C-alpha cells in the first residue's frame, strides 16, 4: 500500500491547519496585566557599598534571612573579613556568612576590613544568559530575579555566576538568590539589608532618579565593582575596595 502525492498533501494540510489554530489561540487568550503606581520603566536599581563604613556586625545577613526566609546554610548576602599580609596574600573568612558577626578577633598586625557581598544584579548577567528556559531574567527595572514556578533546578546559572551568589533552595528545589528585596523596593521601602545597616555602609540606589545620592557618589569617589574583568556590568559599586578583594 503506497501513499500517493494527493494523500500526502491532504494529511500535511490538516497538520498545518492544526498548528495555525494553536498558534492563533495563544495570541488571543488572556488580558493585559493591571497597572499600578509603580512604573518599572522609571527605575534602574543598584547598590552602593562603602567598605570603610562596614563594621562586620552581620545585621544585614540576619535581616535578609528574616525578611526572605533564607534557608539555613545558604546566603543571599554575606560579609567577608579580609586580613592581608604585606605580601598581598589575603586571609579571608566568613563564619556562617557573618550571620552572628565575627566572633573570633581580627589580628591587629595585618591590614583588615569587611566586605559585604550580594548579587550584583548585573546588567549583562551571565546567569541570565545561560538559563535554558527563561526562569531567571533581568527585570525592566534592573533586578535579576528567579521565577520559582518555572525554574527547572538545572543549576547552570549557579555555575555561571562569577560571584557565588546563587544557591539551590533545599526545599523548593529551584534556584534562589538576592532579589534586592523587590517586594519592598517596589513599594517605596528600602531593602532589608540597607534598612538594618547601622552605619549606612550599604545603600540602595536608583540610577534613574536624578535626586539619588548615587550620582554624586560615583562622581566623587574611587569606586569599583567586583571582578570587573568579567564584564558583567555589575550594579553594586564599592567605595574604597582593596585590590586584594576576590
Amino acid at each position: 500500500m503506497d501513499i500517493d502525492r494527493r494523500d500526502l498533501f491532504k494529511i500535511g494540510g490538516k497538520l498545518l491547519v492544526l498548528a495555525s489554530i494553536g498558534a492563533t489561540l495563544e495570541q488571543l487568550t488572556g488580558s493585559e496585566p493591571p497597572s499600578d503606581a509603580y512604573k518599572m520603566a522609571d527605575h534602574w536599581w543598584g547598590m552602593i557599598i562603602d567598605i570603610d563604613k562596614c563594621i562586620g556586625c552581620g545585621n544585614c545577613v540576619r535581616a535578609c534571612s528574616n525578611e526572605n526566609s533564607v534557608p539555613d546554610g545558604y546566603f543571599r548576602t554575606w560579609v567577608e573579613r579580609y586580613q592581608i599580609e604585606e605580601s598581598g596574600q589575603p586571609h579571608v573568612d566568613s563564619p556562617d556568612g557573618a550571620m552572628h558577626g565575627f566572633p573570633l578577633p581580627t589580628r591587629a598586625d595585618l591590614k583588615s576590613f569587611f566586605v559585604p557581598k550580594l548579587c550584583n544584579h548585573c546588567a549583562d548577567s551571565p546567569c541570565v544568559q545561560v538559563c535554558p528556559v527563561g526562569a531567571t531574567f533581568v527585570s525592566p527595572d534592573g533586578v535579576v530575579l528567579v521565577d520559582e514556578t518555572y525554574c527547572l533546578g538545572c543549576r547552570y546559572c549557579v555555575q555561571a555566576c562569577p560571584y557565588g551568589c546563587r544557591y539551590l533552595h533545599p526545599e523548593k528545589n529551584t534556584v534562589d538568590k538576592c532579589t534586592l528585596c523587590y517586594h519592598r523596593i517596589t513599594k517605596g521601602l528600602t531593602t532589608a539589608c540597607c534598612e538594618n545597616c547601622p552605619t549606612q555602609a550599604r545603600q540602595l540606589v536608583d540610577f534613574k532618579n536624578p535626586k539619588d545620592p548615587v550620582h554624586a557618589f560615583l562622581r566623587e569617589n574611587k569606586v569599583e565593582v567586583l571582578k570587573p574583568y568579567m564584564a558583567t556590568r555589575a550594579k553594586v559599586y564599592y567605595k574604597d575596595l582593596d585590590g586584594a578583594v576576590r
Partner: protein
Amino acid sequence: MIPGVDGFMYPNEVELQWSLLIVLYPFITGLVAGAFILASLERVFKVEAVRPTYRLALLTALSFLLVAPLPLQLHLGHPERSFEMYLTPHGSSAMAMFGFVYLWYLMVVLLVEVWLEFRPEIVRLSKSTTGLRRLIYRLLTLGSDNVSPAALRIDDKVGYAVTVIGIPSAFLLHGYVGFIFGSVKANPWWSTPLMPIVFLFSAMVSGIAAVLLLYVVSMKVRRAPIDMRCLDTVAKYLFYTFVIDFTLEMLDLIHRTYESDESFRSLDFMVHTRLWGSQVILQIVLGTLAPLVILAANQLWRFTEAARRKMYVAACSLTMIGIFAMRWNVVIGGQLFSKSFLGYTTYKMGFATREGLLPAILLMLLPFAIFFVLSNLLPPWEKTEKA
C-alpha cells in the same frame, strides 16, 4: 570551620551543584557520538574492514542515546518541568539547544538510519514471527513491505545521506556539551575554547573503545569467530584518534602552565592534592598513556592473534576508565576549588540518594539491557554472517 573545606570558599560554593550524574551524561553522549563515528567509517569513508561492527555500532549508539537524558532528569530539581526546554528555549543558552540537538539526532539520524539498515529483516520477520513479536515488527515496518532491490538501493542512498548528515550531528551532539562547560567565563577550569574539541575527541575515543569491547564480548557470548582484520582496523583508528585526543589535552595543560594566569596556582594545587588520583593516576597514566603504549606497540610490532585480542581488550577497558575519569575531573574538579582562588571543598557522594552512586551504576547498566533487547529484535550479525 566547615567540614571538608580548606581555606576560604564563598558561602554558597561549599556544596557541589553538578554531581556524579552530570559526569555520567557527557560520558554517555560521548559513547553515542564515538560509536556513530565508527559506524560512519564504513558507511561514508568505505573502510570495509570495520563492516562487522557497523550494525553493532548503530545499536550501541541508540541504546546509549535512549539512556542519555535520564541522568539529567534525575539531577533536575524539577524534572517535570524539563519539557519547558522545548516550549520556551532561551536562545542564548547552550543548554537550551540540548533538547533540539538530542531530538534531531535521535529522530532524524539514529532512528532513520537504524530503520533503513534493518528494514529487510524487519519486513521478513513481520511475516515469519507470531504473536507480540509479529505485532512489534509490523509496527516497525510503518506499513510498508517493499523490499525490492530498487527500494533497497534507494534505502542505501538515503542511508548514505543520513550518515553524512549524521557525522556533523554527532559532533554537535557531543561538542555542545563541551561548549556548555567551555563557555562559562566564571570558571577558569572550564573556560577554554579547546573544551568542545577535547570533549569531542575523547568522546570518539571512548565510543570506538566501547564498540570494540562490545564486539569482542558479543562474539564470545555467541561463540562466534572474531574478525581480526576488523579488530585490527578498529584498534588502528582508536590509536589515531587517541593520539589527537592526547595532543589536545597536553596542549591545554601546557598552555595553562605556561600562561600561569590568576587561577593557575589554585588549580595546580588542586590537581596535586584533591585530583591527584583521578587526574594523574587514573586519567593520564592508566587511562591515556597505558592504552597509547599498548596500541602503539601493536602498530610497531606484530603480536599473535590471542595476544592482540587481550591487549586490545585491556587497552579499551583502560580507555573507558580514563575517559570517565576525564569527565569526572572536568565536572567535579571544576567545583572543588573556590572562585576566590583561596580554598577548596570536598565532593560528598551519596549512595542510595537521587544523585548517588547507586542510580549512576544502574544508569550505566541500563544501556546494556536495552542493547540486549534491541539486538534480540534487530539482529546485528545476520547480514555479515550470510556474506
